[in-house]
């Protein structure tokens, strides 16, 4: 499993238990539970999965299987400002690859990584459905449309101070 080791606090464990309980600890609601838990912690490290496994009474292997199957779930913490480049077809034909290259160059990281200071992380996603604005980039909740490689520096600069 992931090399990242985290020690969960009592209140973290209680929080996970509470989420599981809100779905009546039903194994069938595993994906809904994981969505909520990831929403709470930002990612799903092995230790968190263990608590979920115990509460829903399913094997840890099954949970690991589910977490690694779906691209929405991650076992690596995201940066403070997660940068997502849409690589859907509409964005692809309108130059998303060049934009992605520019982000990689500016941030000095590969897709799926975070900057050492934990400020930015870089991921690709498949179609946010704003194809009229292609190519599209999301930073956190904010969406930027019609991005050219030259815009990348300015976008990152907006997050310089925090």
């Amino acid at each position, binding site marked *: 499993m992931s090399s990242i080791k985290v020690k969960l606090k009592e209140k973290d464990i209680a929080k996970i238990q509470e989420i599981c309980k809100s779905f009546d600890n039903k194994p069938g609601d595993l994906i809904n539970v994981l969505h909520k838990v990831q929403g709470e912690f930002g990612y799903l490290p092995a230790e968190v999965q263990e608590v979920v496994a115990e509460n829903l009474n399913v094997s840890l292997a099954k949970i690991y299987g589910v977490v690694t*199957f779906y691209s929405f779930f991650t076992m690596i913490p995201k940066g403070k400002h997660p940068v997502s480049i849409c690589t859907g077809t509409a964005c692809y034909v309108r130059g998303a690859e060049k934009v992605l290259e520019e982000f990689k160059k500016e941030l000095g990281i590969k897709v799926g990584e975070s900057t050492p200071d934990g400020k930015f992380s870089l991921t690709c996603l498949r179609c946010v459905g704003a194809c009229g604005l292609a190519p599209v980039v999301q930073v956190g909740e904010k969406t930027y449309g019609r991005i050219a490689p030259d815009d990348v520096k300015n976008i990152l600069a907006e997050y310089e101070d925090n």
Partner: protein
Amino acid sequence: MANYKYHLLVCGGTGCKASESDRIVNMLNNEIRENGLSSDAKVVTTGCFGFCEKGPIVKVLPDNTFYTRVTPEDSKEIVMEHLVKGRRVERLLYVDPETKKHITDSKHMGFYQKQIRIALRNCGFIDPENIDEAISRDAYIALGNVLAGMTPEETCNVVKESGLRGRGGGGFPTGLKWEITRKSQADQKYVVCNADEGDPGAFMDRSILEGDPHAVLEAMAICGWAIGATKGLIYIRAEYPLAIKRLKIAIDQAMEYGLLGKDIFGSGFDFEIELRYGAGAFVCGEETALIHSMEGSRGEPTFKPPFPSVEGYLGKPTNVNNVETFANIPVIFNKGAKWFASIGTERSKGTKVFALAGKINNVGLIEVPMGTTLREVIFEIGGGIKDGKAFKAVQTGGPSGGCLTQKHLDTPIEYDTLIEAGSMMGSGGMIVMDEDDCMVSVAKYYLDFTVEESCGKCSPCRIGNKRLHEMLETITKGEGTMETLDKLKTLSHVIKDTSLCGLGQTAPNPVLSTMDNFWEEYLEHVEGHKCRAGSCKSLMQYIIIPENCVGCTACARNCPVNCISGERKQLHVIDQTVCIKCGTCMEKCKFNAIEIV
């Protein structure tokens, strides 16, 4: 909507929201308040108007004025000019690209003229967060009539007679599916709405859910009555937060009004709807995989039969339909199966929604009668190719479809004709490509997607597609041979014939269709080591044209790898062994002295 003199409809779809349509709503409201017009004008946040290219869009009723690319700062002018003085704001009107004239009424725009809106009937007209507006446009009437006077069998028959086929891609007759599920015996059955729209570049279902969620809820309840189910589930992508929010609101409001829940319309029929979230797996659009995902497992498909209609969610008979299919249902009941069947062609009835995107002038969401030609869609509705470039191909059906070319432009759009042409209807993504797109790279792009999304259960898909991807990689690097092309074709057919589910069976389609339609481009890559679109980096070289170079040193100074040499006012030369083909020199050169060969 009767009491106000003006209604200002502001698009609140994902695309326009990203361009600050929320702020436009706030500022319009402020201006209206400040000008004392609160009892005359009402601002409504609606679903998608479809014309995303020109978003954010503000439409003023009753005169149908269609303002495009509106910014929050334009709000004041719209209120002061249009509402106060009764004059249209000319500069925000749509300009017809041919006549160069401002078009005031959206009905006269080329984009809308060829469209017939059935599934999208309410998108851009109603506030999707207000059930009363949906009801004012006939929502839940069909459900009331069905519950009051039709048996489940009659209900299925209406859908059968309409000729409606599944809009998710496969085109299976919807009525038949309902009937099979109705005939399956069980203590509990389920209605599932597949809202796991995974095709990259497709946003039809999202727009329907964001713009008219009640259409889908009503249709699911009708389906529940027809097949004998009391529970409905909507499986929706977690990447669609706005659609999720609006669905939740819609479900709550419908429950409150007694249009969902216990004893609907006093008929004794109960129907409830729950949401289930996807977590980013393309294969979950396949119905058996979707069902496994809803059960909390990995979304891996299983062999059919048994079909979900017989053994589905939790082992019970389950009817799975896609969002757009459901959105057609209430209209079929309100206007009659015959009316619906009169639209479209012999084999494909009704309309189809397409998400038009890529290198096209009018990116957006369109709905056309089946049988409309690709030419009409791309050149009349879509407004032709961006920047006056030449049309090269149109990709339909997403990663399962294929690329159609010039010779297919007059093909009428139907399930069967598209398959005959080597592509497929798919869920409705339509990506237009121009002369700058390399078809080998496009095939590689789709394979890249399939390789990542393959669930890994069966080996033809898991290993085969990876090999296809590697071969395409060799070709784009200029290392392919004729043997590579042979193997590419053979393996593609093997994967199609032997994969377990639809994902694998259709994954080689982009390869096969580009090989069929653009064979000469594959040959050029392999034999001539050339990419005519100039997009395969390994096959191109930047060179300096001696006649144009003035020796200004701009290229050499900006080259990130210092591979350009030359004295001031002397001819410069690029060292091809070091060049990384980043294109910076070409961008910086003011004398057009650098070209790609």
